[in-house]
C-alpha cells in the first residue's frame, strides 16, 4: 500500500510561492496549478527549459513568472536543452569555475503536443543518456496554444478543431490517447509519476520522492483546460477531481519501472466527467451516443481490471 511520508497534511505544503501570479495564461489553467504546486518542492534554484506551448507565455519580455531561471528552446528539443545546461553546469563545477552552491535543478516544461509528438525523440535520447533532470508534461490533451487541435494525447470522442464531429465521425476523435507513461517506462528512468492539480498532497509527495533519485524524473500532469475543454474556469478543480475519480486519469508512479497506483478511485461513471465539458457535449446532444460513452467506460474498466491483476 502506497503511503505518503513527507506530505501527510495539507498544512505541510509550503506557503511560499515560486510561480508568481499575474501570468498571461488562461484563468483556471490546471497545468499552471500543477506547476505552482510542483515548484513548492522544486524551489527557486532551478532553470526551466521550455518547449513551445502554452507555458511559453510564462516568460514574456520584460516579465518572468519565476524567481529561478528560464530558457525557451524549441518545440522539439527542450530535453536536449536540458542536456546542454546540465552538462555545462557539471563541467563548470568540475573545473571549479562555478561553486557547487550555484548548481541548479534542470526542469523541462512541455505540453502534450511537444511531449507526445515532436520532442519524443529528444526525450527518448535524454532518458537513454540517464540525464539528471525533471520533465513536466502539462497534458491538456490537444495542441492548446494554437486553439485546440488534435494531438496524440487527445482521448477518444473529444472534439477538437481538427477532429470535429461529423456524419462520418459522430464521436469526433477516433484515436485512443497515446500511452506516454508506458513509452517512458520502457526507457526505465528511475522515477515516473502522473499527477493531478486537485490532489496536491499526492503531487507534492511525488516531487519529494523524485528528488531522491538521480536521472530522469518524469511527470505527467493533468492540465484541465477550461479554454479548450469548454467549461467554466471555476470548474477546474471539479473537472480535475472527476478525471481521477472516474479512473480516466490514474494517479500512479513507476520507481525503476515498477508501477504503483497511488490512489485507487471508487470509479464514478465516466459520464459524470464527460458531461462537464463542451468537448464531449456531442455525446449527449442532440442524441445520446450510448455506444461511444460505453466504449470509454469499458476501456477505463479494462484498465483498472488489469491494474488490479498486476497489483495482485
Amino acid at each position, binding site marked *: 500500500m502506497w503511503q505518503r511520508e513527507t506530505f501527510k497534511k495539507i498544512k505541510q505544503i509550503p506557503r511560499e510561492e515560486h510561480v508568481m501570479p499575474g501570468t498571461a495564461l488562461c484563468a483556471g489553467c490546471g497545468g499552471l496549478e500543477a506547476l505552482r504546486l510542483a515548484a513548492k518542492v522544486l524551489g527557486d534554484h532551478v532553470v526551466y527549459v521550455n518547449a513551445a506551448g502554452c507555458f511559453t507565455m510564462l516568460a514574456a519580455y520584460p516579465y518572468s513568472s519565476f524567481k529561478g531561471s*528560464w530558457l525557451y528552446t524549441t518545440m522539439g528539443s527542450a530535453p*536536449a536543452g536540458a542536456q546542454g*545546461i546540465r552538462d555545462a553546469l557539471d563541467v563548470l563545477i568540475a573545473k571549479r569555475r562555478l561553486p557547487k552552491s550555484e548548481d541548479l535543478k534542470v526542469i523541462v516544461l512541455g505540453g502534450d503536443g511537444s511531449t507526445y509528438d515532436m520532442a519524443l525523440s529528444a526525450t527518448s535520447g535524454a532518458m537513454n543518456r540517464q540525464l539528471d533532470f525533471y520533465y513536466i508534461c502539462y497534458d491538456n490533451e490537444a495542441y492548446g496554444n494554437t486553439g485546440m487541435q488534435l494531438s496524440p494525447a487527445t482521448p477518444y470522442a473529444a472534439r477538437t478543431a481538427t477532429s470535429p464531429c461529423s456524419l462520418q465521425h459522430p464521436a469526433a476523435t477516433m484515436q485512443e490517447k497515446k500511452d506516454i507513461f508506458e513509452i517512458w517506462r520502457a526507457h526505465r528512468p528511475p522515477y515516473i509519476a502522473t499527477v493531478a492539480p486537485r490532489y496536491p498532497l499526492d503531487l507534492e509527495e511525488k516531487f519529494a520522492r523524485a528528488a531522491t533519485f538521480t536521472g530522469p524524473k518524469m511527470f505527467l500532469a493533468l492540465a484541465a483546460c477550461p479554454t479548450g475543454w469548454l467549461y467554466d474556469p471555476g470548474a477546474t478543480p471539479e473537472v480535475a477531481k472527476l478525471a481521477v475519480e472516474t479512473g480516466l486519469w490514474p494517479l500512479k508512479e513507476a520507481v525503476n519501472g515498477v508501477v504503483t497506483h497511488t490512489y485507487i478511485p471508487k470509479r464514478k461513471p465516466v459520464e459524470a466527467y464527460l458531461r462537464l465539458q463542451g468537448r464531449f457535449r456531442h455525446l449527449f446532444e442532440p442524441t445520446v451516443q450510448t455506444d461511444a460513452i460505453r466504449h470509454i467506460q469499458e476501456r477505463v474498466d479494462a484498465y483498472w481490471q488489469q491494474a488490479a491483476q498486476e497489483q495482485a
Partner: protein
Amino acid sequence: MDSQMMTGNLAAAWGARLADVDYIPAFPITPQTEIVEALAKWCERGEVAATFVSMDSEHSMMTAAGAAEVTGARVFTATSSQGLLHAFEVLYSISGWRAPLVLVNVSRALAAPITLESDHNDVLAARDAGFLQIHAETCQEVLDSILMAYRIAEDERVMLPVIVNLDGFTLSFTREPVSLPDPDMVRRFLPPFRPSHLGFAASSPHALGVAVIGGTSYAYFRHQMHLAAQNALEVHREAADSFHALFGRRYDLVEGYRLEDADDVLVMTNAGASKGKAAVDAARAQGKRGGLLRLRVIRPWPAEAIREALRDRRAVAVLDQNLAPGQGGILYQEVAACLYHEARRPRALCSFIGGLGGQNLSEGEFQAIFEQTAEAGVAGRGLGPVLLYSAEEHREMTHLQMVATGNA
C-alpha cells in the same frame, strides 16, 4: 613547430582541441564524422578536458550546444548538409540567445537527389541565421579559422555564433601539411571563456529566449544582432592582426590572388578557389591578366573589401558552387548588390554555376570562364547564370539515362 600531414577534418578537431573547449555535443554525418570521432577519442583519453555527448539528432545537438554555451561553457560542434538543415530552426534560436559557439560545417550537397559530395547550398542556406560564416580554403586555414572564430564570437562587441565551413571530400578527406600552433601561444591569442553576462546560476537567475509581444521588442533585438555582426568586421581585423603577430599567418575578410594588375577577376570561395588560382596562373601564362578574389568571411558580408578589390576591373565572374533554383548563384546576387553603388564598378558582372554535388571543374571550363568574362567586359554586358556542364559530362549523363531506361 613542424608541420604534420592531416585531413581538413582532423585539422578541425585540432582547432577545437587547441581552443580548449568544455563541451562537445555530437551526431555523426558524412563527411563530418571524422571530426567528432577524433574528439571523442581525445576526450576519452583525457587529452581534451571536455565533456563529449552523443546526441539523438542534429536538432538536439545544436540545442544542447547552444544551451551549454549560454550556461557558460565553451562549446564546439560539427555537422554537414542534411544535418545542418535538420538543426535549422535551432540555428536561429541560439544566435538569438547570443551564444558564441563555433560550429564546423563540412559542406555537402543537399538531397534530393541524395549525394555525399560537396557544394555550398547547405552552408549558404544558413546565411541569414545570425551565425557569422568563415569559409576555409586549406586544412591549415580550417584550424586557424576555428581559433579566430572563438575569439571573434566571444568578443563582447559580437557575441554571436560562428560557422567555419570546409568542403566535404575535397578538403575534409585531403591531407595537407598543417602547422599546429603552440598551445601557450593559443592561450595568449584566445583567453579563457569567462563571459560577464552569460550563465545560469543560483545567485543570478535570468530568463533567456523569452517571448516578445509585438514588433517593437522583436525588431530591437534583431537589430542588435545585425549591428553586432557588423562589429565583427572590425573585431575580425583585430583578431587577424593578433593572429598574424603570434603565428605569422594572415587571414583577411577576403583574399586576393594576383589582383594587382588584373583586368578580369574570378570570385570564388572555399577549396575550389585553389583550382581557380591554378586557372589564373594558366590564363596568365597565355598573356591574359586574370586574378581571383576569394570570399573568406561571408557573414558579416565584407562589402567594402569586395568593392575595394573589384573597383576598376574590366569584368568580374562569380563562380557559385551553389544554385538557387529560379534565381541562380547566391553569391553572385550579393556581389552584384554591393557593387551597385560603386561608381567605378566593373563593366560586366558574369554568373557561372559549377561544382554542384562534387561536379568537376575542369581546366577547359575555367578557360572558357575567363574568355567569356573578358568578352563580356569588352562588350560591357554581363552574362549568366551559365550552368557549367561539359561535353564529357553530357556524354556520361546520356549513357546513364540510357541505362536507367533500359535502352543501353
